[in-house]
């Protein structure tokens, strides 16, 4: 028996540490730890709720935009503000673009090297690679032997320099790599193509949001980017046209490169459809309102809960009262004891580090071992993210998601049970990218139609002035970030933030054990993972990367009445 430590877990956002027990070449237990804490909610206290989004967005620069969206929705909910149709559409376009770009970056730049051996690509035959490309995706233009030869030469020159940069010490030649050299070369070419592609696609964010990352046109009550076909400084026909071009190029890449690559690579790794299953419960808040009525029914991606992998019936409704957070194994304490869970509105804050003094080799995983709290829904651990969303949409009978899932299962020759796995999680992200890329042009078109009809409203200013607010108000805002269900809660008193809280996707997925000792989704999914070489834990990275961890998002102080005490305690 050996306990191995992976810290830093790389090719993720932020600071994740895994401690994993391995026996006879298999993982028998796992502990997930976040090793970084900042304290956004404490910083927000006492500030103007209209500017909370500017701060909250900076929780994460990879999931940029999503915390801004959840924040303005929470404040709008608290103050009873409805936003104009154009603002709803602009927000949908921004978020949809974020999904597409972020998922592609995850697949090619964060996850691909778990499956793709770059060194093997050096021995590929460029002509055979071109044949493979034309088989996998007959319409993609970059498919000539000369093209793949040029890519290979570029990598050869790089490797020949002896300076391998970020690829040095990779797990090249590991027995778990299964792709033939030509598939590896094709994937490396697309790694580079995707780098150029993402830089262009995200310009939709710059057009609507000034810049990426960290967009700057959100407003409580709408958006600050004007819409007017007759001026140069607003979203006009020319900018709509530019966004349409970018959206088409996004769809083209997802249809002709990402999804074909995903299915081709998956075909070599079907054993991973039987690994990495996790907790089997799934939560989706749903997102992309199709109207302004605020109902769950208006959401393009539906809201729901699935328990025990049961996708044979409609998902249960979501009740936010059932969310609670534990600190039994987190570096915080609760006044009423650390074994009870608390709803976010009753949350408490007292960061209390009890881990080993750095530098250290191992955490005490019997005690507290993470800066992440442990969210539970109805006391159950929940997986959130693209797989949860797709399963909820599937179980809810949504046509297009069902068709996409069916197509993928048929192509791979596997049954629905394959969805509950590392491979299923990775595939769901790709299928969702296609689903959303198909949707993007429609929302741009609706914005264009509104503009053409003379509907230029972007902001509801009725309650812009704090003088129009009640003395006290509280509200919550949900969104589905690329990595899963995201909720912000805000309490406003006398025009200032009295309490601000965020419960985010990676906290759900990466949480440590709860009071009953139930593992979080990362921890549960790693059980039974094969480990051929503990010094080169490639297989563990596959499963944990399939969740697309985002640690900066996940560490939060949930602020409550105890905040003043905390402030005195911390700021000595």
């Amino acid at each position: 028996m050996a306990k191995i430590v992976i810290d830093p877990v790389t090719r993720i956002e932020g600071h994740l540490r895994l401690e994993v027990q391995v026996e006879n070449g298999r993982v028998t237990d796992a502990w997930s730890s976040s090793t970084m804490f900042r304290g956004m909610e404490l910083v927000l206290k006492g500030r103007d709720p209209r500017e909370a989004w500017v701060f909250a967005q900076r929780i994460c620069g990879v999931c940029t935009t999503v915390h801004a969206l959840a924040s303005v929705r929470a404040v709008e909910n608290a103050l009873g503000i409805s936003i104009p149709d154009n603002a709803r559409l602009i927000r949908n376009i921004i978020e949809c673009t974020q999904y597409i770009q972020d998922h592609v970056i995850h697949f090619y730049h964060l996850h691909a090297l778990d499956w793709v051996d770059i060194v093997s690509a050096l021995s590929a035959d460029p002509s055979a690679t071109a044949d493979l490309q034309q088989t996998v995706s007959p319409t993609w233009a970059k498919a000539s032997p000369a093209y793949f030869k040029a890519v290979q030469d570029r990598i050869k020159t790089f490797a020949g320099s002896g300076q391998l940069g970020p690829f040095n010490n990779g797990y090249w030649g590991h027995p778990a790599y299964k792709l033939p050299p030509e598939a590896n070369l094709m994937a490396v070419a697309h790694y580079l193509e995707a780098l150029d592609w993402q830089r262009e696609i995200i310009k939709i964010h710059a057009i609507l949001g000034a810049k990426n990352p960290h967009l700057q046109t959100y407003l409580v009550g709408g958006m600050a980017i004007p819409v007017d076909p007759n001026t140069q400084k607003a979203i006009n026909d020319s900018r709509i046209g530019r966004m349409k071009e970018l959206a088409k190029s996004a769809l083209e890449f997802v249809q002709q490169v990402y999804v074909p690559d995903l299915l081709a690579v998956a075909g070599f790794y079907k054993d991973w459809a039987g690994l990495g299953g996790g907790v089997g419960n799934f939560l989706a808040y749903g997102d992309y309102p199709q109207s302004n009525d605020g109902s769950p029914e208006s959401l393009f991606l539906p809201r729901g809960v699935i328990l025990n992998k049961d996708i044979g019936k409609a998902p249960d409704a979501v009740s936010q009262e059932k969310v609670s957070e534990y600190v039994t194994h987190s570096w915080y304490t609760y006044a009423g004891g650390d074994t009870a869970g608390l709803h976010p509105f009753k949350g408490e804050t007292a960061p209390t580090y009890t881990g080993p003094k750095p530098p250290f080799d191992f955490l005490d995983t019997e005690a507290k071992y993470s800066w992440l709290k442990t969210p539970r829904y109805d006391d159950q651990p929940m997986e959130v993210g693209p797989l949860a969303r797709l399963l909820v949409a599937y179980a809810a009978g949504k046509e297009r998601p069902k068709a996409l899932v069916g197509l993928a299962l048929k192509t791979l020759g596997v049954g629905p049970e394959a969805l509950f796995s590392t491979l299923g999680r990775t595939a769901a992200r790709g299928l969702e990218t296609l689903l959303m890329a198909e949707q993007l042009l429609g929302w741009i078109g609706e914005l264009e139609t509104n503009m053409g009809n003379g509907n230029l409203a972007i902001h509801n200013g009725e309650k812009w002035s704090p003088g129009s607010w009640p003395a006290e108000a509280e509200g919550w805002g949900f969104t589905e970030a690329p990595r899963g269900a995201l909720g912000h809660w805000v309490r406003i008193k006398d025009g200032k933030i009295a309490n601000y809280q965020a419960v985010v996707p990676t906290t759900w997925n990466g949480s440590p054990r709860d009071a009953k000792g139930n593992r979080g989704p990362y921890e549960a999914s790693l059980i039974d993972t094969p480990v051929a070489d503990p010094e080169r834990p490639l297989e563990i990275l596959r499963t944990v990367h399939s969740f697309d961890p985002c640690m900066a998002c996940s560490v939060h102080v949930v602020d409550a009445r105890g905040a003043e005490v905390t402030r005195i305690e911390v700021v000595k």
Partner: protein
Amino acid sequence: MPTDAPSLEARLAARGISRRQFLKFCGVLAATLALPEAYAPKIAHALETTPRLPVVWLEFQDCAGNTESFLRASTPTVAEIVLEQISLDYHETIMAPAGHAAEKSLEAVLAGSQPFLAIVEGSIPTKDGGIYCTIGGKTAQSIAETVCRKAAATIAVGACAWDGGWPGASPNPTGAVGVKSAVPGLKTLVNMPGCPMNVTNLTAVLAHFLAFKAMPALDQEGRPLFAYGQLIHNNCERRGHFDAGRFVETWGDDGHRLGYCLYKMGCKGPQTYSNCPAIGWNDGTSWPIGAGHGCVGCMSSHFWDNTIPVYERLPHIEGFGVEATADKVGLTALGVVAAGVTVHAVASAIRAKNSPEAPHDEREVAVQTPPKKK
């Protein structure tokens, strides 16, 4: 350098890029740096010199926003930078190995004889022994100390690595500070604030360092003058509206759609030093004021505490439409910059002896001009 020329041609050819195209984007870099065009070939040569400069990119209390900004690089692209111009030996978000294997990559750079560049993203917690950020069981502070002290130069990217950013905003729960405070006394520390920093500026600094083996001229706060030497307000595309007294009064009104000045909506352009208006974001696609929301002053010192409230207009600006006023406000608010420029003037004079032209004169003049009397 005749021995290097074939290598350059061959490597460019392997990438399907003509020498002419390559020189063109070196020209873009030179322009960002405000260097005479004659510098372009020198930059081109430096970018092609092997071995490539090892770079260690450290992430501490960060959001990876500066890493994402880095991925948006276009002149040159991130692939060109990583594959052909530097050797990005350690960057947790991008690198293939994890855990011990990743630590080996860092150890190799530290143990090697080649000088390397450190880039730091995120703040560094100093409270309670630094336990609020550990990597591989070591504190961020100890890692920064080891790496930055040994580096030939350090670049702090983004607001957090500069002065603690939002984690360092009141009440600063973790004692978060920037590199300058966590590792005091570094000989070569370049600060590139912004939330995030603009990658066009970072690639220009990298190119300058590769070409001249030195950092570009800095102000007293260690910020490159080419990027942080001028007030947004002085170069703002909406300045004409400010001077004429045309302001956005409510979000979405006629003036907003026509691109009027955002001063009354809380814009911090009149006190923020940045080349945002000149280079824009995402290949110049847009920038905050251009898109209709005021500047939040993210390039300014401790902006999370000092430039809020976001939506309240800057105080003490009288006489709308008087051009001198904003210059005065800017110089008063950031007097340190003016002082820094004086220091820089000396450095620049020295440099002028070795250079065909002193490249930053125009900017110095712009900043050093005393405020006009009202």
